[in-house]
């Protein structure tokens, strides 16, 4: 019996110990401590180390998390504490042993950066709190206490009185909400939505003028990725075709605008708007050329073919063979920006406007498409191709249409992207771009516009803002995807379908609170 308690806790402590060791080896501990210090307003110059207090804080939080997660939900408080104690001690012992090695490195003055690029002696010192030989003991004590604290926190927060308290708060909030709803004057109910849109519109108009070019750059990037996400969602989310080479269509748009609107290599200078249109058209043509031969494929096979297509386009753009036509590996510079009524319209504020307007238009088009007959046909094809066919849906044309429309969005985003950067080259259209867009859908939520916006912000906006984690971007990315798959498999903001009742039979009757009557309309 007792063994059943000890062994999982031991394993957990060991696992987290190894996790912490890896953190230290790649210097992630210092980065987290730096971010914590920023949270508390300390100004850390790039490249310097944060105060040791924040390292202590990070380790305490880590230990508390271990204690929290080790205490099983249904165990008695004493058992929980015991589990946390075992896990905390294990964690402390593992890291204590690791500390001995680290301390030896410091004492002998060995620099391991030859093998572990990130592990500077200063980082090691910081991790050891600069206490040399007694730091293993410090860590042992710290983790044990922190783990117990975490467990204690769980006991308190999950106790009955606490849950009753939370329930009280929740019902109080709901009561307030209902009251507020009842007291809202009619004109707010009627025009509230328009007022909200007006407010957002005003904000979107004035904010780009106020908040500076860096924020405009970030918002523009997020906006472009929202457009790309919507395009890919038509292909992947609505019509169910797994597409991995989406960047190819993006490249079509970008290169069309670049080649038609830059002094070199052709000097056509057609102007931004017509070349943007041609870019969209080129993306659609590429989609048809790709789509016709591969429409018969599904799932993994389609994914591989489209992935290959994306790479072929990129390599073609880069090839020496086409250098005179596409500018080769160096790309195309000095792309001329758009004009509006004869005036140049290409400041960073103007681009933010263009992107926001295009984004809103894309959302509207997407919403119309989703609810249309074609949208329904796509859903049917996605669910069961054979049955969709048996109800009279033309599979070929519908799949091809989805591909073309998705590509058109990518071409549009690509054109704006190239003009905004005044440059485009093969490296703007790597496989990673396609992966990023797909990840936005997965992280945010397939078929959900708020999800795509949230996903684009999480994956493109946050890394821009949190420049510190640049080196750890892929690690955080991977970790985020794993956590998402476990905790929110449908995305951060999953798609909702308002007209659906859940078949909960008896449950509905039991919980038949007055608020739920609205479902049955």
């Amino acid at each position, binding site marked *: 019996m007792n063994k059943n308690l000890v062994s999982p806790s031991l394993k957990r402590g060991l696992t987290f110990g190894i996790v912490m060791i890896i953190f230290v080896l790649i210097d992630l501990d210092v980065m987290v401590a730096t971010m914590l210090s920023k949270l508390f307003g300390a100004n850390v110059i790039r490249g310097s180390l944060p105060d040791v207090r924040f390292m202590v804080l990070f380790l305490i939080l880590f230990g508390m998390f271990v204690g929290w997660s080790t205490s099983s939900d249904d165990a008695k408080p004493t058992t929980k504490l015991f589990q946390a104690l075992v896990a905390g001690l294990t964690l402390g012992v593992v890291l204590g042993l690791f500390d001995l090695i680290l301390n030896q490195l410091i004492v002998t003055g060995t620099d391991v950066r030859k093998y572990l690029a990130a592990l500077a002696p200063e980082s090691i010192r910081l991790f050891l709190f600069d206490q040399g030989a007694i730091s293993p003991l410090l860590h042992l004590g710290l983790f044990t206490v922190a783990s117990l604290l975490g467990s204690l926190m769980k006991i308190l927060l999950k106790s009955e009185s606490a849950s009753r308290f939370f329930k009280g708060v929740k019902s109080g909030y709901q009561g307030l909400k209902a009251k507020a709803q009842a007291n809202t004057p009619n004109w707010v109910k009627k025009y509230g939505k328009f007022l909200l849109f007006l407010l957002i519109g005003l904000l979107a108009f004035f904010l780009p003028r106020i908040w500076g070019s860096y924020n405009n750059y970030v918002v523009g990037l997020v906006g472009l990725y929202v457009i790309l996400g919507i395009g890919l969602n038509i292909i992947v989310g609505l019509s169910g075709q797994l597409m991995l080479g989406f960047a190819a269509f993006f490249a079509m748009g970008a290169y069309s605008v670049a080649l038609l609107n830059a002094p070199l290599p052709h000097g056509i200078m057609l102007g931004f708007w017509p070349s943007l249109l041609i870019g969209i058209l080129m993306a659609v043509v590429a989609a048809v050329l790709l789509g016709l031969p591969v429409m018969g494929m599904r799932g993994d096979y389609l994914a591989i073919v489209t992935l290959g297509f994306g790479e072929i386009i990129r390599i073609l753009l880069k090839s020496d063979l086409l250098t005179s036509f596409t500018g080769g590996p160096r790309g195309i510079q000095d792309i001329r920006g758009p004009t509006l009524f004869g005036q140049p319209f290409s400041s960073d504020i103007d681009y933010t406007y263009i992107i926001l307007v295009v984004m809103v238009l894309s959302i509207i088009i997407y919403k119309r498409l989703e609810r249309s*007959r074609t949208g*329904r046909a796509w*859903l*049917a094809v996605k669910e*069961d191709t054979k049955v969709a066919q*048996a109800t*009279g*849906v033309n599979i070929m044309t519908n799949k091809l249409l989805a591909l073309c429309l998705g590509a058109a969005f990518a071409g549009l985003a690509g054109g704006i992207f190239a003009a905004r950067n005044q440059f485009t080259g093969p490296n703007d259209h790597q496989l990673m771009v396609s992966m990023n867009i797909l990840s936005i859908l997965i992280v945010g939520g397939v078929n959900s516009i708020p999800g795509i916006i949230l996903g684009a912000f999480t994956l493109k906006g946050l890394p821009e803002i949190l420049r510190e984690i640049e080196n750890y971007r892929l690690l955080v990315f991977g970790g985020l995807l794993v956590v998402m798959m476990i905790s929110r498999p449908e995305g951060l903001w999953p798609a909702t379908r308002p007209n659906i*009742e859940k078949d909960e039979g008896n449950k509905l009757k039991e919980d038949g609170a007055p608020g739920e009557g609205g479902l049955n309309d």
Partner: protein
Amino acid sequence: MLKVTDLNVHYGAIHALQGVSFNLQEGEIVTLIGANGAGKSTLLNTISGLLPAVKGKVDYLDEDITNLEPQKIVRKGIVQVPEGRKIFAAMTVMENLEMGAFTVTDKKLIADKVEEMFAKFPILGKRSKQLGGTLSGGEQQMLAIARGLMASPKLLLLDEPSMGLSPVLVEQIFDTIQSINNSGTSVILVEQNAQMALVIAHRAYVLETGKIVLEGDAQEVLQNPMVIEAYLGVT
């Protein structure tokens, strides 16, 4: 109404239909019975255009529809209700019905049809906003049939409508099929439950390994010793 002549279909190396000929008059229920792998579903899939015929001909209302694309065949009034109740699980009951009327563009007609289906299958009306996947097996089969009827077919191809249903539901489904037929729709019924199928059908064909081995009035077939032994489970 429908005339199939010397139909041959292959799945790769397997010769699934080996020269099948049969016909159906307007207003009839014709049942195809046979063991697993006899080619019953293959025959239906070929008629509705989901499988290509290598040789042979399918004539429908004096028109050659062999190897026509499935969406065109649906528009001509032949609708298949596939085996295993393949409803769209992630769509609501209402959306499933609307999908059934995909070939209909007249919104009023669709609304009328939906009303008609809800009258015929009241349980679907009650559950119109539920996801198809949350329905019970019997309800899903009702929905599959209703979805097939949404396009106002002249000829309904039913593939194993009683599969996996409880005896009470089976009876209900067969009553429904009979009433569909009474309102003027011709039916081709593929069934493993030969007993029930033969009771409501006008004529029957027995398929064995891709060939028709017996045909005749349903009553005659019901009394045929070979059929009794092989399909009706009487020794």
